[in-house]
């Protein structure tokens, strides 16, 4: 019975996504990462049931999240043992708003570009995944991520980085991520980025006055695969509004362009300087010799 309902929902979702997808190609086919897996979070629909947290813990074999609503009394962050958390915030009208947090799966991820051993790697279909067997534990990904998502297992003697992997293994089997497949309220929509950007704008502009006129994640950090729409200011939902619109890996492009020049120009330049200084000394010693007194004649 349960299975059948889920299958039905999935089919309905797939049909909807396919329909949206055809439209999206026109408007957002050129958007960065348009063909990548993506999730639209409509915070106006989230009821804070935290089924996504439980599904995430189960899929990643992590401890069960705390039961009861008391846990919503404080704003939590993701941690090595909880890769996604739902937080409750107060809207200006006094009502509650909920926002799920997890890895944003940037189109151009800062963490993966920062990783010197490609332990963090981006798959062509969108997810930013992690290979613990390559990781040396430098924690530069924690330094680089503008959303403060990678978390380190400081408590362990042999630690790894923990973060949401967008259920890349499930996606490879054609399944939706664990969290989106259990969301009962329709707050999470799984699809392609181009199509979901279209859907997000349709909702924002289709209900005048309801939503803030911004899709969080469309341009943040050069574009993310998790997109948020909201009827309250995004800063109220603890989403980082100071994140720059530019792609973070692009920031270091200039600095990383220097080594080839240093490696090709430095040696000949330095050898040239050496040739000059060597010649100068040679001439000086020869002239010193001719005058017969060496240093004394100069004085």
């Amino acid at each position, binding site marked *: 019975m349960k299975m059948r309902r889920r299958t039905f929902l999935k089919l309905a979702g797939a049909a909807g996504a396919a329909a949206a997808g055809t439209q999206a190609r026109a408007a957002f086919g050129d958007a960065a990462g348009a063909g990548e897996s993506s999730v639209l979070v409509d915070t106006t629909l989230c009821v804070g049931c935290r089924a996504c947290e439980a599904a995430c813990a189960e899929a990643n074999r992590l401890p069960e999240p705390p039961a009861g609503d008391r846990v919503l009394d404080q704003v939590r962050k993701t941690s090595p043992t909880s890769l996604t958390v739902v937080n409750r915030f107060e809207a200006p009208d006094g009502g509650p708003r909920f926002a799920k947090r997890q890895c944003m799966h940037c189109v151009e991820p800062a963490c993966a570009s*920062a990783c010197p*051993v490609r332990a963090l790697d981006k798959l062509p279909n969108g997810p930013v995944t992690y290979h613990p067997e390559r990781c040396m534990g*430098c924690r530069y990904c924690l330094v680089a991520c503008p959303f403060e998502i990678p978390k380190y297992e*400081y408590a362990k*003697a042999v630690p790894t980085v923990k973060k949401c992997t967008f259920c890349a293994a499930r996606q490879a089997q054609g399944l939706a991520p664990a969290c989106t497949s259990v969301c009962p309220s329709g707050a999470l929509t799984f699809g392609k980025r181009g199509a979901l950007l279209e859907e997000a704008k349709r909702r924002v502009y289709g209900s005048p006055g309801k939503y803030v006129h911004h899709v969080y994640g469309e341009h943040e950090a050069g574009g993310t695969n998790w997109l948020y729409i909201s009827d309250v200011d995004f800063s109220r939902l603890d989403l980082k509004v100071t*994140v720059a619109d530019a792609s973070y890996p692009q920031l270091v492009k200039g600095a990383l362009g*220097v080594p080839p020049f240093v*490696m090709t120009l*430095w040696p000949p330049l330095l050898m040239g300087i050496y040739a000059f200084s060597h010649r100068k000394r040679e001439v000086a010693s020869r002239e010193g010799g001719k005058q017969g007194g060496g240093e004394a004649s100069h004085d």
Partner: protein
Amino acid sequence: MTSAVAAEARGSWFQEKILLGMRPGEYLRSLLTPFNGVAAFICMVGVPLLLYRFYAGLGATTNLSQTQPWGVWIGFDMMTGIALAAGGFTIGAAVEIFGLEEYHAIERPAILTGFLGYLMAVVGLIADLGKPWNMVQIFAQNGTRSVLFEVAWCVVCYTLVLSLEFAVPFFEWLGLRRLYQPLRKILLALTVLSVMFSSMHQSALGSLFIIAPGKLHPLWWSPWIFAFFFITAVIAGISMVIVESSISHRIFASQLRGHHVDADALTIGLGKAGAVVLFAYFFLKLQGVIDNHAWGYIGQGFLGKWWLVEMLGFVLLPSLLYAWGARHRRADVVRVAGVIAVLGIILNRVNVSMVAWDYENPDHYLPSWMELWVSLTLVTIGVLAFRWIVLRMPVLREPADLAAEH
């Protein structure tokens, strides 16, 4: 019979090379000094702490957190250690490439400091990495979009170059002429490589922070931070050589017998260079602040004032002192300026990696005593190694064959 002779020969070799010509008992008694006592205490606590860190993990030994992933072991041992090791390439270039022969006498101690500085930084790095054995992945994965990839390769390459440079006095000490002669001949090539790897490495350590504009305070963050790191490395190189040579010349005076060096003239010459570079750096930093639209942060809050302390007290002041000391030929003033400049570089690296990092977080990082103790241990081991080597190998004194030529 033969073996007895060999044993005796070996005994005398050991006595000569390792025990400084003393008998074992004599040598051990000579080690009983207050300085050695303090150093032994530091190491007896620090080395077990280092082992405990691998048994218990980073969480049990450090105050690192999810928002402060890099602490003292990276911010001080790595960032500062590498900057202070810059004397190796600065003086090497001055002597071998620019032909400033008068600095020849301080080239080897500068290279030795660089070599030990890099080794200690690598040990600090191993302590800091969660899974250090995966460092080999640097050679297997081409993480070419990462600044840290560049840093890692530069550490490997430059440590190799430094060990080859250091191999010259090492083989001279062992009397292996066939090994040190060819190395002496390629010293120019090694120096070119050392300048190349250093300029990439020193600047790349700064580039590491470019990707985190929201986390590092705007007075320190700049897209040009790689240039600032390189220039400060040159300042650190010059200043460290001034400080170190004044200390070495006092402590290891016996090593310098017959080695006619006008230490004051060298110091004053270095001070002149230091004044120019520091002065240029001061105005480049102001330029960086303007470029970053961060002028309004100056003097604002603790970090705004702290930035002024760094810039006025540890950049402008040593610059003026260097200039005054060089102008009036006062080596003592130049040495004071050198000490302030070295402290200023340490302050800069500590500020960038720790004090001004994660600056909006009210729950700010403070290192644990264990982190500090391990860092102190590494510095102590570096100093002990420097002394052990200087007392035995031709670093401060001239090698025997060259001294004989004069």
